[in-house]
């Protein structure tokens, strides 16, 4: 059983962080909130998403009762969860047309449907069969030597400018300077920010190259966060962490690097 009420704009900003990476995926519902981990079709980008139940105005969840399993040891309440397959693009579309502030959600597990209600408008979404969706990805074990925290708008502006230049971008740290660099056939762009212009920086010397297609999509997903934290390495995946829904939602993107050409 799952029933909840939430501010439409909060839910939208959460779903937008997901659609930046995947169109559909499996979302886990538990007493403490919602969770999702999904990888894009090319296995290049991943999202880990968590939303605490207390961001909802109402949140009621009870796991499906499992029969005759009480003998097993790990039936602790906290592990009880339900997994549903969701078309996020569709959900986002529905939230966009409601014209209301609040949306009520109600899950019918047997019928595999999610009822949404915004005021007098009721919309029933058919869920996707979780077994038809991609398996939850393995998470690489990564250690990042360098961490940078930057205002989201500064980062997004640079990405927008880089889109005019080429199809990839370098992110790096040189001593106490964080930089983003894009080079096309004709033009070149560089943003450099010293430690004091950033919220946080671990000094170091390294950089990696990334596909702009992916970063641009991620950049749209993070538009509601005030600041983002970048975890970087040398020719290494990029991790971008930020919060949504007043700090009650946590998002972490992972992006595999591109190999630099000589």
């Amino acid at each position: 059983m799952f029933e909840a009420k939430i501010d439409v704009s909060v839910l939208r900003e959460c779903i937008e962080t997901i659609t930046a990476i995947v169109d559909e995926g499996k979302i886990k519902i538990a007493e403490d909130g919602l969770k999702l981990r999904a990888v894009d079709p090319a296995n290049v980008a991943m999202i880990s998403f968590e939303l605490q139940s207390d961001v909802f105005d109402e949140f009621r969840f009870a796991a499906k009762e499992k029969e005759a399993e009480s003998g097993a040891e790990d039936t602790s309440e906290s592990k009880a969860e339900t997994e549903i397959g969701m078309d996020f693009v569709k959900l986002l579309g529905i939230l966009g047309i409601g014209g209301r502030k609040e949306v009520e959600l109600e899950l019918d597990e047997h019928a595999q449907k999610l009822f949404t209600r915004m005021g007098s408008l009721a919309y029933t979404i058919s869920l996707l069969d979780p077994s038809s969706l991609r398996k939850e990805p393995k998470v690489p074990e990564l250690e990042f030597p360098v961490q940078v925290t930057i205002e989201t708008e500064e980062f997004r502006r640079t990405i927008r400018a880089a889109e005019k230049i080429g199809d990839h971008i370098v992110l790096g740290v040189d001593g106490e300077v964080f930089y983003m660099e894009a080079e096309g056939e004709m033009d070149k762009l560089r943003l450099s920010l010293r430690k004091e212009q950033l919220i946080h920086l671990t000094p170091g010397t390294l950089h990696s190259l990334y596909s702009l297609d992916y970063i641009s999509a991620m950049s749209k997903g993070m538009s509601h966060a005030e600041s983002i934290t970048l975890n970087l390495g040398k020719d290494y995946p990029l991790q971008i962490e930020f919060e949504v829904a007043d700090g009650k939602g946590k998002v972490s993107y992972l992006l595999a690097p591109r190999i630099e050409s000589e």
Partner: protein
Amino acid sequence: MSMPRLCIVCKGSRLLCGRNTCPLLAALNKRSEFDKITNTKDFFGPSTSVFVGRRGYPRVGVGPMTVIEGEELGVEPGRMEEPSEWFAQGLDMEEIIGMRSSMLRAKKSENITSRSKFLSDMSEIAMAEHPTEVELSFENKLSFKISFSDIIQPMGASVNVEKMKVTENPKIPKKVESIVSDELRAEEAAKALYDLGLDVYKVSVILSSGALGLNSDKKMVPTRWSITATDDIIFRRLASQVKEYPPVDSFYVYESSYMDNHFQILLMPSLFEYENFEAWFPGSVWNDALGQRPVVLEEYEGFKGRKRYAAEEGGGYYAARLAVAEALHKMKRQAGVVVFREIHPRYFIPLGVWLVRETVRDAFRKGCEKFETQKEALEYINSGLQSKHEGKLGLKDFEARSVMLRQKRLVDFC
């Protein structure tokens, strides 16, 4: 198109292209056959296909393709339109040009939406199982002007038609007839014809003849466009299924070569993605800057498919992609696919995209090499690049332009 510079210098006498005989002379020899009928106003013979021009669109030159001297040539007229047969028999450039030079394109100016009797005859000829006998009266003298194209097979001459009479009942297979008479959109009908077992060559001729589409919007499609449109329509149909299949379990390399076009195809364990390289060597069709570097072109599409036309490579991109999808569909697997095509100087007259389609199909009919890692597979491809031995081109030249080969995957870090 104009003749390559090399040919103008050589004029068939010195064989500068390195061949044993001159393919253009083979074509010009046909001229004497045409000369015999140049003053005749009437023609009787088999029509193997229908050709729709694109100049003047939406008012275009359309009409039956006929064979001037099928019997003397020892070529069955039906074979004139079956590139898969040409490949299977290993015809070389001279033979194909020679054969197609005896094709006469008869044409009449019509609007693409016209519903004239002439055009309904065209649709029937297009759908017929075998060549259909026609009687033509020419408006003017026919002119021998062999034409070549990157998309379309060569043809010999053209003439304006005043009157046409179909002198036998075109034999149209019942199932084809029934698909065409159903109220289906052109795209749906093209898919249904392919599922029936018709090859894309036949489907594209039928599409081009204006036989397909809802009754209210049936129209002709210029031959050049219909070839690529058919490749795209059939690809999308196959791909929607391919994208549901499990990925290949390892790295595979397929290879084939035909008329100085060398293909290597890499399959990688991933969801469907597709990248196509064309390396045009100096002296090959579109790169006549002799002595300079090869020109490498690249086009890519991700899992979600492409919206923009692959302008860099045009029809060749779509022809290769179709053959790849056919192979994956048969294997019931999906993969990340990279096609490496090298076009060497001895391919200096374009013969049409069928050559790409058939060579890629052939690569998948042959065996493959299997590798555990991407690195090993790429090393194999590198050593298989024909141009590598001439020191002109290496894998690096492809990697530098590649979307797929330069992108690491998260699984590489697990």
